[in-house]
């Protein structure tokens, strides 16, 4: 079984640079641009650490579920609706982030008259001053549907155990950290260097990617 865990970690390492940056890079860029850049190095990488910790927590929970049930297809079927909903929510969050980055919307306060629970939760994540807000963000976005992670979940289902499945997928998640963490740090550094219109253009791109995730989630939901 140790070889299996090593394989999962290697899959994450290879997939991180070859797959994750391409697919989830926009998400990382979104919260990095939204967070801005801090002069203090330590606080610069804490959001990325917490985001990745949240993401791996989600993976581990799915992996334990797969390992416990011992079946990928039945479990994936049950998760499909929830994952598509996460894609829709992620898209909406990215659009809000992008609107904030471009300055089009000053903040969630603009929607304060629609004082729903969801808006309050989104406001807490996007506008709270605490770096800990990136952990629930990673927790949520870790549930986004992903072909590479599906392949790993198949392996987790094959472990046949709750803890084994959790450990298997956690190894994969840890393998993806170098790529996404370094990408986030580079984005944070660049966001500090670019100014004015280039920075706002990044916000516009974030809005576009948010729309993409939103539409993809809606279309996938319609196929169920």
């Amino acid at each position: 079984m140790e070889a299996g865990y090593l394989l999962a970690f290697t899959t994450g390492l290879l997939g991180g640079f070859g797959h994750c940056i391409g697919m989830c890079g926009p998400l990382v860029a979104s919260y990095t641009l939204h967070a801005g850049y801090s002069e203090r190095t330590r606080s610069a990488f804490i959001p990325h650490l917490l985001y990745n910790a949240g993401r791996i927590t989600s993976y581990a929970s799915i992996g334990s579920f797969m390992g416990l049930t011992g079946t990928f297809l039945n479990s994936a079927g049950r998760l499909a609706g929830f994952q598509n909903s996460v894609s829709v929510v992620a898209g909406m969050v990215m659009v809000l982030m992008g609107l904030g980055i471009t300055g089009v919307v000053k903040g969630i306060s603009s929607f304060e008259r629609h004082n729903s629970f969801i808006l309050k939760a989104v406001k807490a994540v996007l506008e709270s001053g605490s770096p800990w807000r990136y952990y629930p963000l990673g927790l949520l976005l870790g549930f986004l549907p992903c072909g590479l992670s599906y392949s790993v979940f198949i392996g987790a289902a094959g472990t046949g155990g709750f803890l084994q499945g959790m450990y298997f997928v956690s190894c994969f998640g840890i393998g993806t950290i170098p790529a996404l963490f370094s990408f986030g740090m580079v984005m944070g550094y660049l966001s500090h260097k670019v100014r004015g219109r280039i920075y706002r253009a990044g916000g516009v791109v974030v809005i576009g990617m948010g729309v993409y995730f939103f539409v993809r989630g809606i279309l996938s939901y319609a196929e169920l």
Partner: protein
Amino acid sequence: MEKIRESARIQGMWRDNFILYRPMTYAKQKIAGATVLFCFLLLLGCDTGQEKIKTDCAISEGQCIKTAAADGTAATFDIQPKPVKTMTSLVFSVDLNKADRAVADASVTLALTMPGMYMGDNRYLLKHKGEGRYEGEGVIVRCPSGRKIWQAEVTITRPGHKSEDAVSARYIFEVEK
């Protein structure tokens, strides 16, 4: 200049040395954002990233036969049930023949990859079911970005041969979502 700085500060775009950059007006920001959004919406239906990859196996319509170039073994690849869909239980089968004789003593592995996108290690060891037929069960996972073209590489190792002497055949096919 003070008015520009004040405007930038109000709009949350205050940065060090911001005074060097003239902020976009509110109306221009909206126009720029709407333009890019419109372009992205147009692009949503385009470019799944696999338009240049040609399939050579209509797996949803029937079997696919190829010859492993090194030793002339004919490998017939099939997937059931049809049409071949993602996220469903599938049976992969490979029939091996050489000089009109079934090859019953090979070790056959099937590796599924997606051209242009790393999708992890999807490898199956097929078991011999008799008369040169090797079968295994598995799943082709769905790619949420819309890609549907997969590659199956069948690797055949005969007893008494080294792994580097293994022969292989590749099939590129499209699945349904």
